[in-house]
């Protein structure tokens, strides 16, 4: 994913740079070089740099456009060989790129520029341009190519061909409504008709051109048209009509200060009157012609001086302006470069910051997740170990119970069989066997209790309370003449947890105490009370609390000093010790017996 992102970024950056350079190259190529007030050599070196720049970014169209511009610049310098060389290089590139419109234009331009130096080559290039434009049916290009091709044909004195192409150009111009181009086509055609001595047609087409020009009120071209019609009449030797048309042209050419045409008109009039042997008029118009000629000459000199002065001043100013512009442009480029560096650095900083922030967040999330996973894995390991240990313990207990329990049951059964199978055993032995049987039975019960306590970790106070209540209820059923009560003091915490050994031993002590009261005391009332009492903890040297469980009866008591402790009492003491408790037995012959068990909380 990251590699793809890097690749995409590089491609994007490269494209941005290329498109920027292309724009610069195109903007230079689109300059109107005829209007540039810088030396031609500078123009050529400018476009050579453009060619190199275009080559660097492999921008072939830009390179071809720059070649075309150099060709044009050399053409203006009169270096036609260089112009042709660069023009042909441009054509090759355009052809390679498949830009047929530009190829056609380039060929046509080459041909037209060569028309007075090498008419055959000019004709060849023009034909190539024409063929390409025709294959693409590009009428906008074709109208100019046909017109220029007509000019080539006219120079080659192929007048019918010239007329054919002028006509074709005219058709397209009419079709696309090129109102400026149409009268030029008419004039070209009229010129050819004039050369062919088809004066009627020549006049017709000059008139058509004239009508169009009259519509625009273009005095200059109208004056030219009048003179041209006059020339046709002159060729027909219709002198009066020729004079009329030339007189129509004169005021317009004078008004427009079109000196060359005015001079030409005077010359024509002088020649006509000379032919007509009207020497006065001929002399008059020749004088006019000479005056204009002189004035044109002096005017031309003045104009030349003025033009040179203006040109010098203009060039000087333009150079200064150009210098300032260059400085400004350089400064602007420098500012732009600095801005680009600043913006780029900022963008980079933002990106790096963002990447850092996102990585930090991702890492933080991962750490949080790992911590949680770690906690849960630990918890799982703990609970799994606990579960497996408990299950293992339970299975061992089960085996213990099944095996030893079965063996003890077998012993009981065997003792019973001995007792009942042998009728001649003495009373002493029978009592002994009965004792062993009861002991074994007690062992089974204790084994079961131990196994249970081993598997059960804790017993709640409420559970123990419920079990003691259940026992008391059963005792009530067993002895209806005795009243039983079971009380728990308010200060006792009902949520206290006993270990299973504690719970079982407390229960068994209560059970033994109640059974003894029922069996030996002949009591009418037996009370079981659980409470909390203060307890001096010797080790911690502080006051603590302890549970006190009392089983009290109101029956016959006994003298503790005289009576021998039986199994039941010894068992109770043993159980009390097991749970780190103390057992106190107090008895009075009249008031009854109290068994008190105290265990720390």
């Amino acid at each position, binding site marked *: *994913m990251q590699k793809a992102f890097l690749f995409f970024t590089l491609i994007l950056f490269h494209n941005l740079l290329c498109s920027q350079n292309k724009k610069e190259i195109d903007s230079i190529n689109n300059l109107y070089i005829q209007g540039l007030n810088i030396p031609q050599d500078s123009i050529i070196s400018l476009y050579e740099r453009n060619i190199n720049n275009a080559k660097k970014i492999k921008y072939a169209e830009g390179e071809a456009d720059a070649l075309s511009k150099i060709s044009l610049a050399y053409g203006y310098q009169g270096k036609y060989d260089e112009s042709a060389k660069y023009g042909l290089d441009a054509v090759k590139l355009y052809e390679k790129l498949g830009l047929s419109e530009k190829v056609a234009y380039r060929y046509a331009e080459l041909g037209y520029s060569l028309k007075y130096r090498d008419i055959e080559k000019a004709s060849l290039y023009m034909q190539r341009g024409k063929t390409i434009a025709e294959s693409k049916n590009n009428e906008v290009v074709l109208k100019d190519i046909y017109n220029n091709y007509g000019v080539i044909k006219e120079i080659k004195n192929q007048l019918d061909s010239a007329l054919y192409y002028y006509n074709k150009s005219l058709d397209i111009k009419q079709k696309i409504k090129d109102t400026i181009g149409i009268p030029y086509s008419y004039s070209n055609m009229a010129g050819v008709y004039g050369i062919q001595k088809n004066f009627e047609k020549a006049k017709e087409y000059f008139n058509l051109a004239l009508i169009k020009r009259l519509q625009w009120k273009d005095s200059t071209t109208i004056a030219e048209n009048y003179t041209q019609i006059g020339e046709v009449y002159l060729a027909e030797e219709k002198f009066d009509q020729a004079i009329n048309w030339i007189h129509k042209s004169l005021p317009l050419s004078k008004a427009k200060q079109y000196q060359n045409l005015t001079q030409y008109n005077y010359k024509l009039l002088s020649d006509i009157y000379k032919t007509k042997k009207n020497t006065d008029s001929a002399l008059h118009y020749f004088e006019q012609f000479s005056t204009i000629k002189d004035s044109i000459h002096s005017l031309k000199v003045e104009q030349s001086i003025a033009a040179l002065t203006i040109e010098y001043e203009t060039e000087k100013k333009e150079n200064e302006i150009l210098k300032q512009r260059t400085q400004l442009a350089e400064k602007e480029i420098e500012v732009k470069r600095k801005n680009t560096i600043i913006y780029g650095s900022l963008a980079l900083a933002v990106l790096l910051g963002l990447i850092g922030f996102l990585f930090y967040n991702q890492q933080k999330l991962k750490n949080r997740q790992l911590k949680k996973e770690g906690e849960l894995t630990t918890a799982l390991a703990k*609970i799994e170990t606990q579960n497996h240990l408990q299950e293992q313990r339970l299975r061992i207990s089960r085996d213990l119970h099944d095996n030893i329990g079965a063996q003890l049951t077998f012993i009981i059964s065997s003792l019973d069989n001995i007792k009942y199978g042998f009728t001649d055993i003495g009373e002493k032995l029978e009592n002994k066997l009965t004792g062993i049987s009861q002991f074994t039975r007690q062992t089974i019960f204790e084994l079961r209790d131990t196994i249970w306590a081993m598997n059960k970790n804790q017993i709640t106070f409420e559970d123990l309370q419920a079990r003691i209540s259940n026992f008391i209820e059963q005792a009530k059923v067993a002895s209806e003449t005795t009243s039983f009560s079971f009380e728990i003091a308010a200060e006792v915490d009902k949520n206290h947890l006993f270990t299973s050994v504690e719970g079982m031993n407390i229960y068994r002590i209560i059970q033994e105490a109640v059974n003894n009261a029922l069996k030996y005391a002949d009591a009418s009332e037996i009370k079981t009370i659980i409470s909390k009492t203060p307890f001096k903890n010797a080790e911690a040297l502080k006051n603590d609390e302890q549970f006190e469980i009392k089983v009290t009866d109101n029956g016959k008591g006994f003298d503790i000093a005289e009576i021998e402790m039986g199994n039941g009492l010894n068992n109770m003491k043993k159980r009390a010790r097991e749970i780190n408790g103390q057992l106190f037995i107090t008895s009075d012959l009249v008031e009854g017996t109290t068994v008190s068990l105290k265990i720390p909380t």
Partner: protein
Amino acid sequence: MSVSIYIFLFLIISISLLLLYFKVQKAKISADHFNKIDGIELEIERNKHQIKVRGIGLNKYNFLKYNLDEALIVQPEILVH
């Protein structure tokens, strides 16, 4: 000016791509994490349930009846080794 716009566009596109990339990564990491967590929690629940079943069995032990057979419930699906 145009270069600034290009830089701005480049920045916007880069930021968008970065955010998208990290969002996808985050979703992937979270999905993996939650899968793992779910698996562990399921295991914990299974163990808890087994302990609970054992506890229910042991609570059935009656101190008067000594019914240890009913209290010791073996769960054969637990592999103790």
